């Protein structure tokens, strides 16, 4: 069973939940930039939650179905169409042999997730297929390549079609102004009260300089009392402040250690919301705490278990 990639677009990557357990060797995790969307795509299909999917950034991705299948699309609305008929995200769809699936251009959000019933079957490298080009790991052949024209996306024999969807009120609105809670930590105390006030009152603009490693923001420069720190492990969502004072939120392909001061960290779910915003969008921050982040994540994990209409 397979799909064939007709157009890879700007960036389409094979991703699972990430390559965990190798960061002590300097190997980053990779994995979905938007965990909320990724996990729901697998859940709608009744897949293992970490089953491999395709993460499509910006759209312009097309494939042809060599076999019929049940798919789910979540995340950003990239104008998906089956045989030129618009289809809605956050639900399952049946695709017939010979059908063409296109992701056109972003309507809302930046990254879409395409899951197939049973999951795609790429090569596994260090226990994961998460594509990290910089490290030459993951992807279809395990060597870190993004998807290219002519690639074959294999999957297990398809299950029968089940209509499942995420209820509308739970679908994230990626166009809403983004205001994210920061968990104070790391070198938070090395930022004076004036610097913190500046950080929490500024509307930062998402710069052109965004990728799977980090989101560089533009706005009021903030400065730590520390020039540099002894290099230490960097968590997903950590907010690093280099010498120029412009914060960088570190994402899934971040380096494992680094020596810049960090003012705190986002929760994984909040980092995922940021990952759906592109250059020019704005984001502001408020002081939150780890209890709030923990509680929200536990609720999300519980919510995933409960399922959704149609989910087995």
């Amino acid at each position, binding site marked *: 069973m397979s799909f064939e990639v007709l157009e890879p677009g700007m960036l389409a990557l094979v991703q699972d939940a990430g390559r*965990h357990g190798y960061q002590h060797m300097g190997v980053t995790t990779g994995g979905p930039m938007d965990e909320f969307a990724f996990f729901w795509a697998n859940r709608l299909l009744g897949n293992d939650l970490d089953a491999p999917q395709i993460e499509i950034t910006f759209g312009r991705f097309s494939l042809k179905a060599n076999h019929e299948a049940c798919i789910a699309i979540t995340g950003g609305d990239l104008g998906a169409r089956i045989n030129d008929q618009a289809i809605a995200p956050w639900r399952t769809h049946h695709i017939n042999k010979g059908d063409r699936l296109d992701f056109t251009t972003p309507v809302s959000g930046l990254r879409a997730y395409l899951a197939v019933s049973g999951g795609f079957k790429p090569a596994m490298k260090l226990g994961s297929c998460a594509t990290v080009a910089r490290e030459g790991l993951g992807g279809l052949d395990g060597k870190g390549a993004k998807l290219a024209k002519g690639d074959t996306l294999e999957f297990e024999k398809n299950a029968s079609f089940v209509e499942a969807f995420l209820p509308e009120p739970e679908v994230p609105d990626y166009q809403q102004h983004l205001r994210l809670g920061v968990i104070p930590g790391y070198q938070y105390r090395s930022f004076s009260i004036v610097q913190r006030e500046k950080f929490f009152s500024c509307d930062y603009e998402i710069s052109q300089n965004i990728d799977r490693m980090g989101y560089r923001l533009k706005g009021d420069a903030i400065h730590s009392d520390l020039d540099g720190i002894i290099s230490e492990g960097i968590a997903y969502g950590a907010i690093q402040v280099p010498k120029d004072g412009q914060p960088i939120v570190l994402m899934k392909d971040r380096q494992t250690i680094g020596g810049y001061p960090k003012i705190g960290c986002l929760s994984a779910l909040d980092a995922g919301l940021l990952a759906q915003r592109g250059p020019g969008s704005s984001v502001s921050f408020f002081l939150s705490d780890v209890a709030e982040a923990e509680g929200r994540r536990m609720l999300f994990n519980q919510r995933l278990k409960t399922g959704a209409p149609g989910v087995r």
Partner: protein
Amino acid sequence: MRIESVNENTCMVYFGDQIGAESAGLVKRATDRLRRDMSDLIVDLVPSYTSILVTWDLEQADRFAIVRRVRAAIDSEDDGSTEGDSARIVELPVYYDREVGLDLEDVCEHAGLSRDEVVRIHSEQLYQVYAIGFAPGFAYLGSTDERIAIPRKSTPRLKVPTGSVGIAGTQTAIYPSCTPGGWQIIGRTPQKMVDWDSDSLALVQVGDQVRFRAISRDEFLELGGNLDEL
């Protein structure tokens, strides 16, 4: 020891504020114990110079439980089970020559020493693996003798050949793969530092010690060394 929350499933364990053998020893010992006692909960550990970043499975433990478990693991009495490999020394053959040591002359000039002296000073020291990062398997080793210390290159190279041995400040490292980099390159090892198809994966770990052994051009080639730029 200080344990601080970072995010909902990550915390930081700090062991001191100074780079050195003492912190490195504590980090190594704690890393071994966390692996031994908490493999059921831990998703990832990132040991570095003076700290360990711990990511755990939130489905199994909340932030209070994890602090208790980390303290219990690190404070537990020695039973000898993790002490055996604490003194692992890895010897790395290095071909020190202008041919592959792209900055060897600059280092000699900066130090005011001959090539032989620089090589002797670099290879007679036993180095501690303080941290791994930047790229997979890139090990930060310290500390070099002050006499051969040199700042990073003002303009980093776009491609540093695989196996290159470099110096930056009083740190030294081997480039396990061809990446951009600004360290001053003094030689090259024929030894593969990472091999994702082997069981060992990476040759050195945080807490290991490394010694360099100067080898000839012939031996470099015999050991499978590559003289090409990349």
